[in-house]
Structure formats: structure tokens, C-alpha cells
């Protein structure tokens, strides 16, 4: 009789479960791979390519055709004119050809030697084109009655062109210029410093203000729900709406904040809040704190409400004062959520783009790394340099994430 043994390896049931799980996850994995992983790989590729914004449109043969001359009656002579050019000023196109159909009733009188005509099909071969090359081809024709009757013009049959140009995104030209450019000089140091200031103070500020708000609302009274909803407004409203509201409130010429400060005698002349160093950086940080304190407030409040009240009663009996209770009971209980929030907010603030972009556009000493991506790629039109900044950001995030995962897996038991 064989010994009874526990099953070895995964049984058919477990296998079926795993198969089902992967099946359920498949759509998500595909979508995420397409929109997150692929672009991330693309960023690395682009960052070592000399790509400009204009290169995104591949060079192509641009062709215009028209018919010129007076031809009211049959037997008049006219010309068909083809104007062609290379759309790119710095990329050659090889193997340029075009073909067109001459409308019925037009007889070609003579032909350029690069072209040939069979029945009414016109074919031309121009060989290779230099960057920015222009070419005009005129074909004298004889107009017959059939053409005048038809009313079909040469433009009505669109000419087709061919030609291959090497695409800068896929060819094998590589360069390290992008990295050299962004790491170059004081600018990069300033960008890093601004990012660090914005991230650290934005994160700590939002946590502290959120903690204060949570302490305020951690008791039940009439209207608590309304206040909680109200304090959430900055987070829920569209960023573009509140950013413009801030800009108008702090406008140097007609903003209410300046009018108020002038009237109160705090300042004697209008302050350009979002246009001066270093005030602009402080203002965008304050905006960040204002916009994101609700999130920390919500998480901290949720944690506070789950703390057992018995503990506070016991502390009360023992004569602990309110501040002592807060410091020795609440803070240790909140430390977990505070540190998770700190890490999360740190990364998100680091990633933040819209706020600064809308408030200052990265001017007046507020250019963070993320704004620099946009600045390089679209304002200076150097996509490659933008991608290089993105690679730097990604590197920073990877470092944070390793730290984050180590920590959060203990906190959350993931």
C-alpha cells in the first residue's frame, strides 16, 4: 500500500485560479504597457536622439498644380504647371517621383525628359532631392473641345507623390548633446534647488496645515459635515480654475490682495506676487499647500477617528493635560499615516506640473524639473532635451520608489 503524501507542486485547481487571475488582469496589463511602459522606453530612446519639434513632421514632397493661360476655344494653347518642393529645410528626400492623370481633351505638346506619358497617365522621376529644394515643371498643352465641355480641371485628379526620407526618430543617429545641454551650467543647479524647495516645503506645509485642520474637525458638532466639505474645495476644484482665481486675486495692477495690503498700510507699492524672485517660488509653494492640505487633512482625520477613545479617558483620569495627550497619545498613533502621507505627497509634489505651469509658466525662478521638460520640449522646441530631463526625473523617482516600497510595505503589509 502506497504512503499517503501531501500533493507536490501546484494542483490543477490552483493552476486554474492563477490562469483566471492573469486573464482578469490581462486587459489592464496591456493598456498599462501600451500607455505607460512603452512611452517610458520611448523617453529613453528619444533622450539620446537629436530631435526637434519640427522633426515630428517627416519631410515630404509638397505639390501644387494649376493650369495657366487663356483658353476659351478649342485649339488654344496653355500650360499645366506643377510646383514641387521638399518640405524640410534640412532633410534630403530620396527617390522622388510623382504621377498624375492629364484630363481628357488636353494634348501634351512637349515633355520634360524626366517624365513620360502613356495614354493620359503622367509619370515623372526626380531622383534625390536636397533639403529645401524647389522645382517647377511646366507642360505646354493643346486644349480641345472635349476639355471645355467636361469642365474637369487638372487639379481635380490629385497627383500622387512618393519619396523616402530618413526619420530622425527611427534612424541610427545618436547623440549625448541633450544631456550635455541640460546638465550644463548654473541653470540645472537652480532647477534642482527650486524643485527641492518646492517639494520639501510643499509637502511639509500641506501635512502641517492638514494636521491642524484635522485637529479642528476631530469632534462632532453641528455643521461639522459642512465644514469638512468646504475644506475640501481646493482639492476638488479644477486646477485651472483655482490657479486663475489666484492669479487674479494677486494681480499686481488690479488684484484685490494688493489693494487690501495697500489700504492696510502693509506695503506702499503693489507687489508682483507671481513675478518676482524669490516671492514667486514662495507663492507657488503656498498654492501647493493650499491646494493639497485637504488630502492630508482627510487621511489624518480618518486615522484620528479610528483611535480608541478609552485611551484618552484613561489619560484624563491620570491627569494628563490636553497638550500632553496630543503629544504622547495622538502623535505616536498618527506617525504611521503621517510618514506614509509624507512619502506619497513628496513624490506627487515632485511630479507636479500643472500648478506652476499655470501660475508662472516657470518664470521668475519657479522652474522645477517637470516644468523644465515642457520648457525644453515645447518652448525651446527641443524634444530630445525635454526627454533627457524626463529621464532625470525618472531616475529620481526610481530612487524614491525603492525607499518608498521598502517603507510602505511594512506600513501597509502589502
Amino acid at each position: 500500500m502506497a504512503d499517503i503524501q501531501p500533493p507536490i507542486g501546484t494542483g490543477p485547481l490552483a493552476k486554474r485560479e492563477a490562469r483566471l487571475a492573469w486573464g482578469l488582469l490581462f486587459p489592464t496589463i496591456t493598456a498599462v504597457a501600451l500607455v505607460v511602459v512603452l512611452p517610458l522606453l520611448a523617453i529613453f530612446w528619444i533622450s539620446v536622439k537629436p530631435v526637434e519639434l519640427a522633426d515630428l513632421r517627416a519631410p515630404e514632397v509638397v505639390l501644387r498644380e494649376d493650369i495657366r493661360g487663356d483658353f476659351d476655344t478649342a485649339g488654344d494653347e496653355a500650360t499645366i504647371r506643377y510646383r514641387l518642393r521638399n518640405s524640410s529645410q534640412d532633410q534630403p528626400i530620396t527617390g522622388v517621383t510623382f504621377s498624375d492623370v492629364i484630363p481628357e481633351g488636353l494634348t501634351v505638346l512637349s515633355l520634360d525628359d524626366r517624365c513620360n506619358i502613356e495614354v493620359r497617365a503622367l509619370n515623372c522621376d526626380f531622383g534625390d532631392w536636397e533639403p529645401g529644394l524647389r522645382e517647377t515643371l511646366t507642360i505646354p498643352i493643346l486644349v480641345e473641345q472635349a476639355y471645355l465641355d467636361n469642365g474637369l480641371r487638372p487639379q481635380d485628379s490629385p497627383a500622387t507623390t512618393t519619396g523616402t526620407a530618413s526619420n530622425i526618430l527611427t534612424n541610427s543617429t545618436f547623440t549625448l548633446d541633450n544631456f550635455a545641454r541640460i546638465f550644463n551650467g548654473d541653470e540645472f543647479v537652480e532647477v534642482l534647488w527650486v524643485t527641492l524647495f518646492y517639494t520639501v516645503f510643499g509637502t511639509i506645509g500641506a501635512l502641517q496645515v492638514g494636521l491642524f485642520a484635522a485637529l479642528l474637525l476631530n469632534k462632532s458638532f453641528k455643521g461639522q459635515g459642512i465644514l469638512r466639505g468646504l475644506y475640501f474645495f481646493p482639492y476638488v476644484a479644477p486646477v485651472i480654475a483655482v490657479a486663475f482665481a489666484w492669479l487674479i486675486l494677486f494681480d499686481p495692477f488690479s488684484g484685490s490682495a494688493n489693494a487690501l495690503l495697500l489700504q492696510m498700510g502693509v506695503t506702499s507699492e503693489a507687489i508682483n506676487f507671481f513675478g518676482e524672485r524669490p516671492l514667486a517660488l514662495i507663492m507657488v509653494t503656498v498654492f501647493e499647500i493650499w491646494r493639497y492640505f485637504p488630502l492630508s487633512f482627510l487621511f489624518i482625520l480618518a486615522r484620528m477617528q479610528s483611535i480608541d477613545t478609552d485611551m484618552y479617558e484613561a489619560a484624563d483620569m491620570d491627569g494628563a493635560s490636553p497638550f500632553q495627550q496630543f503629544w504622547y497619545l495622538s502623535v505616536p498613533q498618527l506617525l504611521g499615516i503621517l510618514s506614509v502621507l509624507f512619502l506619497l505627497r513628496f513624490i506627487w509634489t515632485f511630479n507636479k506640473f500643472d500648478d506652476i505651469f499655470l501660475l508662472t509658466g516657470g518664470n521668475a525662478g519657479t522652474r522645477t524639473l517637470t516644468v523644465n521638460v515642457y520648457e525644453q520640449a515645447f518652448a525651446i522646441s527641443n524634444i530630445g532635451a525635454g526627454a533627457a530631463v524626463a529621464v532625470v526625473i525618472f531616475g529620481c523617482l526610481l530612487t524614491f520608489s525603492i525607499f518608498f516600497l521598502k517603507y510602505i510595505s511594512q506600513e501597509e503589509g502589502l
Partner: protein
Amino acid sequence: MIRRGYITGPVLGALWMLVLSITVAVAMSFTTGDAFRPGAWLSVLWGAIAGGVMVRFGRGRAIQAGILMAVVVLVLVGIGPMLTGVETGRAARMFGAALLGAGFAMSLAAILNEVVPGKLTRHEFEGAVIRFLTGFGYIFFTAIVLIPFYVMVMTSFKNQSELIQNPLDFSVDLSKGVELFRSYDELFTQFNFGTYLLNSFFISVLTVFITLAFAIPGAYAVARLRFSGRAAFSRSILLIYMVPMIVLALPIYIAFSMTGLRNSFWGIVMIYPVTTIPVALYMLQGYFRGLPAEIEEAGLMDGLSRMAVIWKITLPLSLPALASVSLYVFMIAWNEFLLAFMLLDDPSKFTLTRGIASLNSSEIPRQHLMAGSVIATVPIMALFLGLERFMTKGLTAGSVKG
């Protein structure tokens, strides 16, 4: 030292008077447009005296009334904690003074409730400080949250000349009637905001449905099914949530430019859900984990397939979580700015946020910009206030252990 009634009372009184005089001066300036300003040193002086009086003579109605009268008289004479300009109307001045006096007398009495002359216990002292901080906190938070929104709404009701004339005046001239809504009318008739509103709405709703279709099965698998790589998967979801949008936006812009998906409704609908799937999946799996597995197992024993279990047992049980995730995803899609800004150039396909961005030019008056902002803000606010409970519960569900 500070824990003595004769010191605590005046100090808190002085600070509280400073807070209230600033608050009332700002509020009066905004509502009347007239000149009101707090007098810092005078506030400290009168506040300290009032605090001392309350500690010495008690906090009865008579004392409160006396302080009220004193504040009103001082303000009207011109040496009070709040100063007024020469042109400020008599009625406004009276009202401001009474508001400050009444508010101060009543609230200070509450703050100094247990403060007695002589030595205070820790409890009495800290209680008073906490009541002061609480009062300050309510004023502070309500002010910082309301003022920007107030400015947004009021600016949208004004016209150009009113705005330049007195930037402080945020009173609404109700006698203008329908004329108040002129900016809104122009946005809808001349700037296509009706179309933008519809575009935003359809894109957001589609995003919600597509996100749920992807996230529900994924979250269920991560929460319930055993497979190797589960922990790694649930971590990588979090990691993906950490990738900044601007880093992805650049290659997406390039790819969309080359494939002609830029400037198309479907391009946006394809890209939005992917940005929301990771967070939706993360929130939902947290909730699914909290559901009792026994009910599902009973269903399996009774012969339901897994799919049927999800459809008939898990989903009905997690309706609150689905509501909160939907609301959150809707909010993200509705408020999204960066991708819409980069990928849409054709005014007929703009979303609301992109439409507002197009109003930001020197040729378009500011009240239009603010009216556009109000149009984008009101629907999401209404939705949020109506479903606030779901939203706050859902946001914290995935990440806070009880």
C-alpha cells in the same frame, strides 16, 4: 510665568483682538469696498485691557455688553482696534464696529471661560489656548478656502470698468438683474462653452465606464485570487501611480502627432482611462479585501462560476466603493488639464479645461475667464457635495488601516 490668569487673559485677549480686527476689516472691505483697516498696536492694547477686565471682573452679560459698547465707541472715535477711512459711510462704520465688538466680547468670554486671577492649572491654561487656536483655525481655514472662490464668482459678475475702478469692491449689484450673467451668456453664445461642457461630460463619463471595466476584474484578481506574482503586481500598480504625467505626455504627444490621433475625441478617451486605472484598481482591491470571502465561497459551492460570483455577489456588495471610485475618476477626468492642453488644438473638440486655457489671453476680459472657471467648478462641486460621504470614505478605504 505665563500660566497666571493676569498674564494669560491679556495675552489671549490681545491676540484674539488682532485676529478679529483683521478678519472684520477684510470682510468689511470686501463687502462694502470702503476703507477699513486693522490697527495692530491699538488692537493689542484694547484686546489686552479687555482680557484683563474679563479675568478680574468676570465674564457676565454686563461685562460683555460693556466691552461691546467700548469697542463701538472707540472705533467711531477713531482710536479703536479697527480704523476706517474718511469716506467710509456712517452706516458701514457703525455696522463694522458693532460686528467687531459683539464678536469679540462674546467669543473672548468663551475663550477665557475657566481663566481665573492667580495661578492656573495646566488644564485651565491649555483649555484656554486650545479654544483660542480653535477659533483662529475656523476663521483661518474658512477665509483661505472661501476667498479665492468668492473672488472667482464675484469677478465673473462684474464688467471691465467696475473691476478697474475698485478692486476691493466685491459687493454684487443685484439691481443689474440678468445683466449680471452677461459674461456667462457670452461664453455660451460666442465662445462655444456649451460644446465644451458636453465634451467634458461625455469624456468624463466614458472614462469612468472604461476605467471600471478594466479595474474591477483586475482588482478582484489582486484581492481574491492566489497566483504567483501577486505581491509584485500590487506593488507595481503603486509604482505606476508615481510616474509623472508630463514624462508620459511627451511620447504620447509624439505618437499621437504621428498617427493623427491628436486633436481627436477618441485619442483623449483612449488615454484618460489609462491614467485612472491604477488608482481605481488600488482603491477597489482595498475594498474587495475587506469583504468577507465566505459569502463568495458559499456562492462557488452552490455552483456559480467565478464570473457569476463577481457579478452577483461581489459587485452588489461593493456599490458604495464603486460609487466613490466613479466619483473620483470622474473628478480626475473632469479636471484634467495637461493632456487636453497638449493634445487638443481644434476649438470644436475642446474640453472645459482646455476651453478656459484658451480664454487666457490679453484680448479676452478677465470676467470671462472667471465665468469659465465657475462653469467648470460648479458641476464638480455639486457632485462632490452631494456624494461627499462616498468620496471621503473611498479615498481613505484603500490605504488606512483601522
